[in-house]
């Protein structure tokens, strides 16, 4: 009885620990194993080596998807940070109805990628959106068909992604701006710095850890991007906007190449690890440094 | 029957021993202060008495009952925390009744107890407030009230006054003392403030580096510290430690301050036993045991004082007394004197040292000789 009361916490935790450990570790190992197995349409546990990784990296669809991810990821993160910073600074100017502005800029985050993608598809599509509207206005030669253009479709995805995520960046950067010591700003003003210069030289540099944190979160979103592209372009035209997550789905559930799909999923995990592990190490290191400073 | 008995108690985390062989005993109704610098193990000791930390080896007995393996709730103790730890979502009344509810005490009895304790602590008007609506002193009172409604065998205090400002701290100190006198509960009180320990405790346990250095009445601890650490820790300003050598003059043993004029300061009879001429010692004298020679403070008690000469470097008036930073035999010494008697900076003055009050320590072992 005594033992039971003493170990209540552990006993209560056991089911969830078991489930979580199974979920995180077992599921990962499982997919990892599938990626080096003989699986095709159905899972097969026979070991087959790393051939599927080689075939994956030699398929054009995958290499294009990975390149797209790099281009999309960097433009999406930079764009969201730039727009988010701009919005945060604008709102920080003691504007009236601050919460209204904030609500407007942040609401896209509450709606799904599917809704976002569908709405913007209608607007970007030449048969329904901006181009048709320009034709109706009498500008017959107007062309706005990025979404169906192999060279430009990815930028439509970037734009829509930024539309969806910049409010997120704004909210966090605004919180950061508000946490800056007011005396620092006063000191800069007394030193004769103009407002833009105060932001550029004094305020923004002090909150750079927030930029880093936001960038890491957004990169994570970028790597996992799937729904947005499905709703917006379905990866097309051709493979112009295909991203790794789409390839995974196709390989696993459309083409019956489970092993190669698993290999692609593992590559997504690797990409995430490449972003998150250095960041985790860095924050850990910085926390220790600060710990040392504070004694 | 002792109310609290601690025998050969040890505590280690991993391989690190944070409490070494603690022995302590408190009679029923006693007020024991555990005092020492931070990291000395006093809070760990208190947590072990409370049952919040496990015992590595040794025994803790409360009213003769071995409680080593008992849960905190079964030890019949109450505790007042440094942060007060008042439950923020409960009113003062609920904070006080929470423990009684756990013990399934009838509602009527709960109400009666709360009324009695609230009257004792004068917190009746606060009973329906939340902790966030209370001032620091009020929170302190409520925390004590929560401890008292339990009618415990033992009340534990963990640095209860350190979150208060200086003025309130002195007020609450007096209240705790009055309270202890009226309820008479055995109390263990952890503090790093030696004045709190001196004013409140019937016995003080001075701890340092996990070792209980001395456990005795405030008077004994102050006048006869067992070692240099206890002597230096208790008392403010700190005791002066001057290096010296044992000398002889007219057949009587005395102390010769190193770096001085070689004069032998004679020790009172009975204090020189076991000392050999030429032996190195530390000469410890508290700032208040210097006085102006004409006062003859020691002589009026029938004791002896000797005059030393001191060079005054700096004076620090505090209002009630004036602190002199001086050099005696070239070694720095702090002297306290009446504000009206304060000399000018730079003056060379004579000071009477109350020789019955000085302590001599062995420089190697730091034990009192």
């Amino acid at each position, binding site marked *: 009885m005594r033992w039971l009361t003493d170990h209540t916490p552990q006993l209560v935790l056991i089911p969830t620990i078991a489930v979580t450990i199974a979920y995180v570790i077992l599921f990962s190992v499982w997919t990892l194993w599938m990626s080096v197995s003989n699986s095709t349409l159905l899972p097969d546990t026979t070991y087959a080596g790393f051939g599927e990784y080689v075939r994956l990296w030699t398929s054009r669809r995958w290499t294009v998807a990975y390149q797209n991810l790099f281009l999309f990821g960097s433009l999406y993160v930079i764009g969201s940070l730039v727009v988010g910073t701009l919005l945060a600074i604008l709102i920080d100017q003691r504007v009236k109805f601050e919460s209204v502005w904030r*609500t407007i800029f942040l609401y896209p985050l509450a709606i799904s990628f599917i809704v976002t993608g569908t709405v913007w598809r209608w607007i970007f599509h030449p048969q329904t959106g901006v181009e048709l509207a320009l034709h109706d206005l009498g500008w017959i030669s107007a062309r706005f068909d990025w979404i169906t253009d192999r060279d430009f479709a990815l930028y439509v995805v970037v734009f829509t992604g930024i539309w969806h995520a910049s409010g997120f960046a704004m909210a966090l950067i605004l919180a950061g701006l508000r946490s800056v010591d007011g005396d620092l700003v006063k000191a800069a003003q007394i030193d004769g710095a103009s407002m833009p210069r105060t932001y550029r030289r004094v305020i923004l540099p002090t909150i750079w850890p927030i930029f880093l944190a936001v960038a890491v979160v957004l990169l994570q979103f970028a790597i996992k991007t799937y729904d947005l592209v499905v709703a917006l372009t379905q990866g097309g035209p051709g493979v112009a906007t295909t991203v790794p997550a789409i390839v995974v789905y196709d390989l696993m559930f459309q083409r019956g190449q489970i092993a190669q799909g698993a290999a692609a999923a593992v590559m997504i995990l690797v990409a995430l690890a490449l972003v998150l592990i250095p960041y985790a190490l860095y924050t850990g290191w910085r926390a220790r440094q600060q710990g040392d400073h504070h004694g | 029957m002792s109310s609290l008995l601690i025998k050969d108690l040890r505590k280690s985390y991993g391989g690190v021993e944070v409490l070494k062989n603690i022995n302590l005993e408190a009679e029923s109704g006693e007020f024991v202060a555990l005092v020492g610098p931070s990291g000395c193990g006093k809070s760990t000791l208190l947590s072990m008495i409370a049952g919040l930390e496990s015992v590595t080896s040794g025994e803790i007995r409360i009213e003769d009952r071995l409680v080593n393996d008992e849960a905190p709730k079964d030890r019949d103790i109450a505790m007042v925390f440094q942060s007060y730890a008042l439950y923020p979502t409960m009113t003062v009344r609920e904070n006080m009744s929470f423990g009684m509810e756990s013990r399934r005490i009838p509602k009527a009895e709960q109400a009666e107890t709360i009324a009695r304790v609230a009257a004792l602590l004068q917190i009746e008007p606060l009973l329906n407030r939340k902790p966030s609506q209370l001032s620091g002193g009020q929170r302190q009172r409520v925390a004590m009230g929560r401890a008292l409604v339990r009618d415990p065998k033992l009340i534990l205090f963990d640095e209860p006054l350190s979150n208060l400002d200086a003025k309130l701290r002195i007020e609450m100190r007096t209240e705790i003392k009055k309270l202890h006198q009226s309820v008479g509960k055995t109390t263990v009180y952890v503090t790093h403030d030696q004045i709190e320990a001196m004013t409140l405790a019937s016995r003080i346990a001075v701890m340092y580096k996990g070792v209980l250095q001395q456990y005795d009445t405030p008077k004994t601890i102050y006048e006869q510290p067992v070692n240099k650490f206890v002597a230096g820790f208790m008392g403010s300003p700190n005791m002066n430690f001057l290096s010296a050598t044992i000398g002889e003059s007219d057949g009587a043993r005395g102390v010769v301050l190193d770096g001085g004029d070689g004069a032998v300061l004679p020790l009172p009879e009975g204090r020189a036993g076991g000392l050999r001429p030429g032996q190195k010692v530390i000469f410890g004298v508290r700032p208040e045991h210097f006085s102006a020679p004409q006062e003859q403070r020691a002589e009026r008690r029938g004791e002896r004082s000797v005059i030393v000469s001191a060079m005054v470097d700096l004076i620090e008036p505090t209002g009630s007394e004036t602190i002199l930073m001086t050099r005696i035999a070239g070694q720095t010494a702090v002297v306290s004197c009446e504000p009206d008697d304060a000399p000018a900076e730079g003056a060379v003055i004579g000071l009477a040292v109350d020789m019955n009050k000085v302590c001599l320590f062995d420089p190697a072992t730091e034990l009192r000789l």
Partner: protein
Amino acid sequence: MAEAAHIEFNPLATGSRRRQLTSKTIIYLCLTGFALMYLLPVVIIFLNTLRPLDAIVREGFIAWPESVTFSHWAEAWGSFCIGGTCEGVSRFYQNSLMMAVPATILSTAIGLVNGYILSKWRFKGANFIFGVVTLGVFLPAQMTLLPWAFVLGNLGLSNTISGLVLIHTIQGLSFTTLFCRNYFINIPDDLIKAARIDGAGFWRIFRRIILPLSPPILIVTVIWQFTGIWNEFLFGTVFTSGANQPITSAIVAFSGSGTGERHYNVEAAAVLMSAIPPLIIYLVGGKYFVRGLTQGAVK
């Protein structure tokens, strides 16, 4: 947290009146421009739910409605044909509710207890467990698709809403545990010690001390779990089909397929309808939404 300390100095309040006025004008112009950018797409789509189909086909989405009717909303809700059945989105709406509500409640409830244990009853190995739980937050869904297919298949939960509830509960556990643990860690340990001395045990401390302090984190967690699960698409698409799909998958199924005549106005109404529950939560709990954001990302 960060919202508490505001810069008490207004840089715009310096300089001449005219300069102040100019800067204010520029700021409000910029804000209005961005606000239009954020609001217009949804406004445009809303207006199109009111327009007749032939007008949309002729003029596209970007045009002022000449005649207005709300009938497309009713059609989208109750009688529009999707995938062979003509029940509108009401059925899929119900599916999404049946999925999101239980999964939110379950994952939040378990997360609360887990967070309480991992922050206040630390034991050997607690940090390792917390580490694994944290990893679960970052694990990409693609890594779990094949194992889930196997698990759901063996439990007989393929193509059921219960299967999705299971997935979202277990997936959400990592997130809720992390959030609650990081919140509870700021509750002073002395409170727990005091309660233990007062004779309270594990569950009593949870019920009387921890739960009353939990509403802020509870709201944050519920908002994020519900929004996330409602908006989720991949699992819904992979593990359900036909009449068992949640709303997000259903929308893609009918608006994404390029075959047949398009009913843009009805589709637009359905798309907006699917966004209403998370939007309401966002508008009602906006403060907590932002708070969850700041806590989740910075910590």
